[in-house]
């Protein structure tokens, strides 16, 4: 930042992405966010940020806000119509009228609320009180159901409370790190930086990674266990048997602090080490080695995430892993413990306030009558409803059956993220009144709303969040809300008061002295009530205050009244929050995935994160630069499977499950095991389009996934669906690429979305380097395929949207041959640059046109041969190749070239390449990829 551009203010807040919960410092100038830095004082990241966090300010740029945000309340006269602006008062009156009507006519069970682990604790608290306190239903669930509910259930089943016992610092103290079902390198990059530091500081540290995929995290491992999908319980039981055989269990700890070990041993008998190794598909020796390190090379810290959670046996998997920690006493001490990594920034906070269908405030249980009474007393109502609410999948299934008449969706995108999209679509169509409370107007769910309410988002919000290690941070506003956006807690408060006025039969049940359930004027006033509800609970934070968080920094709960600081790790005294103070072994049995592969559906489809994207991409998807790592949707397959299916790189393949089908390009990946397929969870209908066999638009990756889930946690098995793969013949291809003014690019992408359903396959993504010096243009890529050429009107529409119909456009049209090409060029100081192109029919020239356009190479030498077909460039050219480092835009070819003259051991060579190209020296997210390249490209041997 130059001196003349000093920011007006610096604001400490947190990153809104994953559950690592990093602190950031936001620079604002004249009311605009201009930069973001890692907060060196925040314990979660100590100043570091990953690719996503370090580009947050770019997602808050004015042009992004103008084009992508929901800026005013909007209402649709009918479904499918264009929403029209409506004032806040009218919007909330309408919402209150409709909800009150449904509640009066059909009862409180006929309404549903679906929230998000991205809401702040304060938002969550008011929502929970609104639904359970005022309306009188427990039909409140959130996308945390898709994320952490198995972890919650696993902790409660074994340790007695939903509390991750460990903390990030434990990484530095561990001798063995056991990462299971987590690609930390991509999903929690800043935590991975700590792991790298710990390994550097302690060469004896052993890293075990168990994952069906050879992820970048797995590449780092000392021992990699490529287990078959869903076999985690067998692995843990097998390891338990090795621990028993080799005397590595902690008898003293078991006797002193646990119950049920014998039952567990009996349950685990079916999984002898050999049987477990066979089930998991790993060498027996490796399983034994893992167990030996786990029990013998201690302390041992397990880190796990959706691989355990998003499972039909999610609770069992969590519990079986915790069993190992209890059996070895690896809990409650530095460097030890079962540590669930949270997916969302505030899934923890949501759990704390009880914002789920089966939870109540401050880790109270709905099923517990005295807990219900405590909450009713805290809230000043006669009772909270007893009947468990509908959990996420069940809520949408009920809605699809017509049992939910009014649905309120806040801060989440179920039309993208829920499994079994066919059911979700039916639900959204069937519900009489759908409210979507959102920061972004671009999500798939917005298209189904009757009423759209603009919410504040990162940079504007005010409140608190809790990260994976129970650490509560203040979230502070750096700028004023965009447009007419309002804070979520305030929207719920306002709506709640209007609903109170319409439901006298409900307010009549308030306890004396309670005038309204929503007396809030500030987020702090909400939080104070939440704080009071934690008194005496495991997560007691009565010793905390906003003031303390702001002056002494983020704190880990519990921090009861009188405590001077938060609690780093739990259960150091061996006392667990169960009735008798002893932890319980969970005698779970291994069971396979809900939908085993068979002859008809022989592949196991796995879904998960990409390094540079987050969830439905409503935020990360606004930045072209975050598509530099993985630029377009694809299904990853083992190279042998590609060969067997006759697929070349990029060939289109239909992926079909029992619930839906979609077409996308196949990509060979050495991370994949045979008979497994992987599609990133991000590729929803906003980015991946196409038609079903019946001509309906496809709904992204989750048209394939599995609604069946864990019977205890109700978390759906998003990590495995049985699918069938078949190459498809769609010979007519289309590719549109264009640099567009940043002011227009996102709007163009929105305008392109409705066209995506017109093709058998389509995808639409941004590209580019926003934020780099002088980069005022954003790229848009539209790709499609069809059985035969589309009509001229479609091409005309595409050309118009991609600005390919001016006087500066070269064209080739062969209508009967189905070939259309258009090239837009701009004359710049050093020559002509290709700034847009449309290839239709034969798109093979993408091979050289795309680098020409994306790398901004001078195109003078090509002339009208830009319109030439074929993959061979008509003029020799040097493309940059795949981007590895997003921060400094360093390509793989540059890195391999540098490596060819960097001698030394792996670490020295990495350091030299980093020094030379700067790659991996900012956020560090690409370091695992760099290490992989270092290994793969040894220095050419010279004669000595």
């Amino acid at each position, binding site marked *: 930042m130059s001196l003349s551009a000093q920011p007006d203010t610096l604001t400490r807040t947190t990153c809104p992405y994953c559950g690592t919960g990093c602190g950031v410092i936001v620079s604002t100038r004249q009311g605009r966010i201009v930069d973001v830095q890692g907060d060196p004082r925040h314990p979660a990241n100590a100043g570091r940020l990953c690719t996503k966090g370090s580009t947050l300010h770019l997602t808050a740029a004015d042009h992004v806000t103008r084009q992508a945000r929901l800026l005013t309340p909007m209402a649709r006269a009918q479904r499918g119509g264009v929403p029209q602006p409506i004032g806040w008062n009218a919007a909330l009156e309408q919402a209150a009228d409709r909800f009150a009507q449904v509640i009066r006519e059909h009862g409180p069970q006929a309404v549903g609320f679906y929230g998000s682990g991205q809401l702040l604790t304060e938002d969550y608290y008011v929502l929970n009180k609104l639904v359970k306190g005022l309306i009188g239903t427990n039909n409140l669930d959130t996308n945390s159901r898709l994320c952490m509910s198995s972890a919650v259930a696993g902790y409660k089943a074994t340790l007695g409370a939903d509390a991750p016992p460990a903390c990030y610092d434990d990484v530095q103290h561990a001798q063995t790190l056991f990462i299971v079902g987590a690609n930390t390198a991509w999903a929690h990059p800043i935590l991975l930086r700590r792991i790298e530091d710990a390994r550097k500081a302690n060469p004896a540290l052993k890293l075990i990674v168990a994952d069906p995929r050879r992820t970048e995290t797995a590449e780092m491992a000392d021992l990699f266990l490529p287990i078959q999908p869903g076999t985690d319980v067998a692995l843990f039981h097998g390891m338990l048997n090795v621990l028993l055989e080799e005397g590595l269990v902690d008898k003293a700890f078991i006797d002193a602090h646990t119950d049920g070990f014998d039952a567990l041993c009996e349950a685990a008998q079916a999984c002898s080490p050999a049987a477990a190794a066979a089930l998991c598909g790993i060498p027996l020796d490796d399983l034994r080695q893992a167990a030996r390190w786990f029990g013998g090379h201690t302390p041992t810290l397990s880190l796990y995430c959706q691989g355990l959670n998003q499972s039909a046996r999610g609770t069992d998997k969590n519990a079986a892993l915790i069993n190992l920690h209890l059996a070895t006493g690896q809990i409650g001490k530095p460097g030890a413990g079962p540590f669930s990594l949270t997916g969302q920034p505030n899934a923890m906070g949501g759990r704390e306030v009880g914002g789920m269908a089966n939870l109540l405030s401050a880790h109270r249980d709905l099923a517990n009558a005295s807990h219900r009474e405590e909450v009713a007393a805290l809230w000043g109502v006669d009772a909270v409803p007893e009947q468990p609410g509908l959990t996420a999948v069940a809520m949408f299934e009920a809605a699809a059956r017509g049992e939910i008449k009014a649905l309120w969706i806040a801060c989440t995108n179920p039309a993208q993220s829920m499994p079994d999209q066919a059911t979700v679509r039916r639900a959204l169509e069937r519900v009489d009144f759908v409210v979507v409370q959102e920061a972004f107007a671009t999500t798939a769910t917005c298209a189904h709303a009757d009423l759209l309410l603009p919410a504040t988002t990162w940079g504007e919000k005010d409140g608190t969040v809790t990260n994976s290690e129970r650490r509560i941070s203040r979230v502070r506003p750096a700028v004023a809300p965009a447009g007419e956006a309002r804070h979520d807690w305030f929207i719920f408060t306002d709506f709640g008061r209007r609903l109170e006025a319409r439901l006298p039969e409900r307010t009549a049940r308030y306890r004396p002295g309670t005038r309204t359930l929503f007396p809030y004027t500030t987020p702090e006033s909400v939080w104070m009530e939440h704080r009071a509800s934690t008194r005496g609970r495991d997560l007691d934070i009565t010793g905390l205050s906003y003031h303390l968080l702001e002056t002494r920094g983020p704190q880990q709960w519990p921090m009861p009244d009188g405590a001077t600081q938060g609690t780093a790790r739990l259960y150091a005294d061996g006392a667990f929050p169960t009735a008798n103070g002893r932890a319980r072994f969970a005698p779970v049995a291994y069971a396979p995935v809900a939908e085993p592969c068979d002859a008809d559906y022989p592949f196991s489809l796995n879904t998960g994160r990409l390094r540079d994207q987050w969830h439905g991409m409503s935020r990360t998807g606004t930045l072209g630069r975050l598509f530099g790592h993985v630029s377009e949707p694809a299904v990853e397959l083992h190279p042998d499977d590609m060969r067997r299916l006759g697929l070349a790189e990029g060939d289109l393949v239909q992926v079909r499950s029992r619930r839906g089908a979609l077409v996308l390009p196949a990509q060979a990946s050495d991370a994949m095991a045979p008979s497994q397929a992987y599609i990133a969870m991000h590729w929803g209908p906003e980015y991946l389009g196409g038609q079903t066999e019946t001509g309906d638009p496809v709904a992204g990756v989750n048209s394939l996934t599995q609604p069946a889930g864990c019977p205890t946690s109700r978390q759906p098995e998003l990590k495995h669906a049985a699918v069938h793969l078949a190459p498809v013949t769609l010979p007519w291809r289309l590719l549109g690429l264009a640099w567009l003014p940043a002011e227009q690019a996102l709007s163009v992408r929105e305008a392109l979305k409705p066209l995506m359903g017109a093709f058998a396959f389509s995808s639409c993504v941004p590209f580019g380097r926003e934020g780099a010096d002088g980069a005022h243009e954003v790229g848009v890529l539209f790709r499609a395929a069809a059985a035969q050429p589309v009509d001229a009107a479609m091409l005309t529409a595409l050309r118009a949207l991609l600005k390919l119909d001016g006087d*500066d456009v070269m064209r080739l*049209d*062969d*209508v*009967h*041959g189905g070939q259309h090409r258009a090239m837009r060029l701009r004359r710049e100081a050093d020559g*002509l640059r290709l700034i847009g192109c449309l290839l239709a029919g034969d798109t093979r020239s993408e091979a050289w046109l795309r680098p020409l356009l994306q790398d901004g190479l001078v195109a003078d030498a090509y002339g*009208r041969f830009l319109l*030439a077909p074929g993959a061979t460039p008509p003029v020799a050219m040097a493309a940059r190749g795949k981007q590895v480092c997003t921060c400094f835009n360093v390509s793989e070819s540059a890195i391999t070239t540098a490596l060819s003259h960097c001698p030394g051991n792996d670490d020295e060579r990495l350091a030299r390449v980093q020094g030379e190209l700067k790659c991996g020296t900012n956020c560090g997210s690409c370091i695992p990829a760099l290490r992989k390249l270092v290994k793969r490209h040894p220095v050419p041997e010279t004669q000595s």
Partner: protein
Amino acid sequence: MAKLKLVMVGNGMAGVRTLEELLKVAPDLYEITVFGAEPHPNYNRILLSPVLAGEQTLDEIILNPLSWYADHGIRLHLNRRVVEVDRRRRVVVADDGTEAPYDRLLLATGSSPFILPVPGKELDGVIAYRDIADTNRMIEAARTHRHAVVIGGGLLGLEAANGLMLRGMTVTVVHIAPWLMERQLDQVAATMLQRSLEARGLRFRIGAQTEALLGGDDGGVQAVRFKDGTEVQADLVVMAAGIRPNTELARRIGLLCDHDGRGGISVSDTMQTLTDPRIYAVGECASHRGVAYGLVAPLFEQGRVCATHLAQFGIGRYGGSQTSTKLKVTGIDLFSAGQFMGGDGTEEIVLTDPFGGVYKKLVLKNDRLVGACLYGDTADGSWYFRLIREGTKVAHLRGQLMFGEPAQADDAMGEPPNDVAAAPERLAA
């Protein structure tokens, strides 16, 4: 044994080329007599435009100097117009009474410019553009006058206009059709051409109908008036509104000619007139299968066929020509051939390049190239012309067609371009 007598009426490019071909294959068969109405030996009429534009001199465009006629024993009568033929006695009579008997007669009388039947067409300063004399008058006019109007935006008119402009005149081209060179270009190419010529300084009145040429007291032309009442100042008016085959002599001696205004002398595939097999006709005066050609390449093809028959070989048939067009205005490249306007059952491939100022349209029918219209880059014109003439199937080439002849495909494509394809020149508009 006495030689046969061959008399040729006309001393232009088609006729003399026929003699050259004949002399190559049968140098001693005939005693040859040539009557030429102009005072010049055979010159390259195509190059009158560069002469007008000042890019070449008259000397440089002489094809066959007088010595060539002498060397080949040809009796040449210049400035002689043939007025009569006694087909029974087989004698040709010129306007000065010169007679020449023949065994074979070759008519190569060419064509004349079409003069618009408008009032004032007889005024001084109103000329056609056909021969050296016309060219000299235009060069002279440009020395002394400022304003020229060229009626006709075809090849010839545009070349004349360009030449006059280069000689310093302010030139307006009047064209009645919706776009320039409508018989050689589609509207897109014509518009690009017009823009390019406008950028050079030419003015255009497209779609304007000439109502009258207005004269001054001195009997010289002063202005052109259009049907809409507007006028354009003119010291020189060049009529370039098309040509008519010179069939006056043929009709007088009873040879069958086509009926319409542009009809030529009807000839067979051996270039013999349908009426009298001793009489041949080649060039712009001939009508073969109903077509009178105005471009040089078909005329040379006719000449070659005609020569083989004159040589009594009895081989060779003229089956008609695919024609192609180029415009000789330096810096402007255009080319068209075949059915460039498309039509029923045709498919088009079109390329536009505003940066290179290039437009290319290829017309296909039944998997064969049947037409091409190129503007700005005509390098591939001869290849396309060859594909059109040879009727080559192009399915395997379709994607590459716009981007030139594939280097490796020489064998598949047959002969390299021959002289015919390489010389798609106008003989007259």
